[in-house]
């Protein structure tokens, strides 16, 4: 791997331990995966924030970085944490958890990393088309590559943080044009009708595609929020980092291996995401975090209705979107729901709230919740989720 003189100095420790260690992370990963050099990035987005999912492990390392004077070189953000201060009364968090979570966030902040605490940083500031990034949240990676036209590998928490501190990333994987080319032609026979059907399709595709780059034919006029669900699900069950949706796309698919997804397969994937048909005690929308328009849509549907008293109705979004959507947030709250920021039902403690059955329109959540949250999952589109939550 070619390093500039600057890179070499950093590697040799002239800028101190924090930058040396970060440079070593990038160079080692680059060597293993066949990078030729480090390239500048526009932004970094790190995972590894919620105390529920990461525990104490990263605190030692983050503390050592801060003590060694580490500062981010590019615009850098992080994933959701373990709770929402504004809805703290609805969270199952002890004083100890609060202190630990505050400490983790404070350490990122001290490194100049903006604690946006969302998995959808692109709703706050979208990357430029063609910009190279080092993002760790897998759903955001697929969205950035496939919908926004930016270029990022699926980073891990530590490598995204190292890239933030160096301002560069090794140029392997989908930073190379040849690795972004389609390698399989998927024909979707039945056009998915809502975000849940897109998500279920994504879970199936993630399982069967491995690291192949699919052109997905049969998805005309797909909304961005539908593609968000599709991509998040593909990354959940598989290795995906990029896909190409289209209505009919003959030119790009010449000579490629083909895979047909028929109605039965799609239906099976959808049904497989529910582990129960029982009444939920929690209904959760907003995985990945809702966009402004999604919050608006939920508010329009729920206006004038009432959430059942024994159901928790959570809409999760970024703090940024919640502040912008003030009127819609009021509507949802008036109906008996909560608009939760900085966290989500997967990375906070829901089992500890007494939740047994979680209903959601997110295939990613339905896939994870039974293992990560030890709750039963019921999977349905948004309208049905709201209808079930309300009297």
């Amino acid at each position, binding site marked *: 791997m070619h390093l500039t003189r600057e890179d070499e100095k950093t590697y040799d420790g002239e800028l101190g331990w924090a930058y040396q260690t970060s440079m070593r992370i990038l160079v080692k*990963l680059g060597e*293993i995966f066949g990078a030729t050099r480090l390239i500048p990035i526009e932004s970094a987005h790190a995972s590894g924030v919620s105390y529920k999912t990461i525990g104490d492990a990263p605190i030692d390392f983050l503390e050592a970085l801060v003590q060694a004077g580490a500062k981010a070189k590019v615009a850098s953000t992080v994933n959701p944490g373990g709770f929402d201060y504004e809805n703290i009364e609805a969270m199952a968090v002890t004083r100890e958890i609060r202190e630990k979570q505050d400490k983790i966030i404070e350490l990122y902040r001290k490194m100049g990393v903006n604690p946006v605490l969302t998995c959808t940083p692109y709703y706050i500031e979208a990357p430029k088309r063609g910009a190279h990034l080092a993002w760790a949240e897998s759903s955001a990676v697929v969205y950035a590559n496939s919908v926004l036209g930016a270029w990022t590998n699926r980073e891990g*928490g530590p490598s995204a943080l*190292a890239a933030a501190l160096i301002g560069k990333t090794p140029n392997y994987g989908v930073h190379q044009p040849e690795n972004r080319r389609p390698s399989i032609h998927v024909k979707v026979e039945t056009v998915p009708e809502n975000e849940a059907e897109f998500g279920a399709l994504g879970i199936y595709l993630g399982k069967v595609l491995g690291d192949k780059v699919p052109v997905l034919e049969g998805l005309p006029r797909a909304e961005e929020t539908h593609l968000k669900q599709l991509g998040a699900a593909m990354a959940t069950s598989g290795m995906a980092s990029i896909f190409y949706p289209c209505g009919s796309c003959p030119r790009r698919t010449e000579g490629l291996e083909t895979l047909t997804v028929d109605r039965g397969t799609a239906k099976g994937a959808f049904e497989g995401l529910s582990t129960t048909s029982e009444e939920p005690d929690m209904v959760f929308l907003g995985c990945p975090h809702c966009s402004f328009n999604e919050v608006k849509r939920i508010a329009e549907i729920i206006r004038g209705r009432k959430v059942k008293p024994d159901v928790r109705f959570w809409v999760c979004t970024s703090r940024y979107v919640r502040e912008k959507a003030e009127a819609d947030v009021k509507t949802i709250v008036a109906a008996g729901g909560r608009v939760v920021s900085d966290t989500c039902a997967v990375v906070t403690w829901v089992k500890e709230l007494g939740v047994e059955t979680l209903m959601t329109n997110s295939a990613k959540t339905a896939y994870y919740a039974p293992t990560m949250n030890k709750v039963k999952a019921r999977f349905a589109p948004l309208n049905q989720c709201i209808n079930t939550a309300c009297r």
Partner: protein
Amino acid sequence: MRELKGRPIVSGQSRGKALVSKKPISFLGGIDPETGRVVEKDHDLKDQSVKGTVLCFPHGHGSTVGSYVLYSLAKKGVGPKAIINATADPVVVVGAVIAEIPMIDHIDISQIGTGDTVEVDGEKGTVKILEAAAHCT
């Protein structure tokens, strides 16, 4: 004495007793970060400690937070002395880099037995089996 040649990943030299697993290891959730004991259900190293061992396993898996677990283990003095993998994966590589644990890969780890005294050279990418343990596996 036999010498196996692999690929250097993290430099440094270390000598110790090998602890060999046939299964991938997830450091997050799989190893108790306080004691270094393997806690993963149904793992072939269950209840054994990685402390002070030359830890040999096919590759890592699971969350990238595992890299931080490796760092914490090393800081608390309960981590492995060296790591030998069949195929290095990002989680373990990053963990070994930040914890400064000598590491090599591209080694046929079935050639090494638990209890063997081995010497790892992370610069050259080699492992010497100095003394084979007197047992059958």
